[in-house]
């Protein structure tokens, strides 16, 4: 699994998560720019997942295979679900849901990277 891709995904998650927190602190609504940023993160997540699937297909066998696969399956759904859940209620604190989602994606990407590094 590409460390560079994972690093990019994690960095983007940090930036967008921070952006969501700042949006709440400044009492702003979620704007198009933030949503575009989230879409970019999601693309990065998808690229990371594809990278992981390719690694599995070409013979990489993490010791924790089931957990690794579970991470790859869950990862793409977190940001869309979080965004949907945040926007369905346009109150100020619900924007924090985006920060939670970004943090979750960050942890998943990093953990997946660690799991893929320990192979049989």
């Amino acid at each position, binding site marked *: 699994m590409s460390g560079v891709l994972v690093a990019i995904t994690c960095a983007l998650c940090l930036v967008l998560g921070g952006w969501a927190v700042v949006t*709440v*602190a400044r009492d702003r609504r979620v704007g198009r720019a933030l949503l575009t940023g989230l879409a970019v993160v999601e693309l990065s997540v998808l690229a990371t997942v594809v990278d992981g699937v390719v690694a599995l297909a070409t013979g990489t066998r993490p010791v*924790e295979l*089931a*957990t690794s696969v*579970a991470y790859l399956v*869950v990862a793409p759904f*977190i940001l869309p*679900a*979080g965004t949907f*859940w*945040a926007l369905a*209620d346009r*109150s*100020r*604190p*619900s924007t*924090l*849901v985006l920060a*939670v*989602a970004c943090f*979750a994606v960050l942890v998943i990407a990093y953990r997946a990277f660690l799991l893929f590094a320990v192979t049989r």
Partner: protein
Amino acid sequence: MSAPDRTPGRPGRTTGLGRVLVALYAVFAIAAVSRAGVQIATDFHEAPLAYLLSALAGVVYVLATVGLGRSGPRWRRVAWVACSVELLGVLTVGTLSLADAQAFPRSTVWSGYGSGYVFIPLVLPVLGLIYLRRESRAARPPA
């Protein structure tokens, strides 16, 4: 965290900070259920107690997520029970895992008071209970 949002949304819906809680709970529900699933499916015999606790934690998180996310008195009661069980669980398992490490050769979400998950498992039920209490007070304004 910021002050609770008092914006009157459509009644009977989880709003404001409640939604953040639900999101956190959802993450932990998915994490705990999948973790327990993997553990029980792959090496249940190694630490049945820890793995069953993981599964229980997962179920509690799912119930808390749904209980907080949906409206109505019945779901509120589910949320109350789930958050209370969760707090009790994290305190009990946390203490036991430190006092008697032999009993917990494999860690669970609640081991070491959730230290493997930046203590979020310890903070979450407290926030949940505070939120529920606040919400029930807001619903019944002082006469």
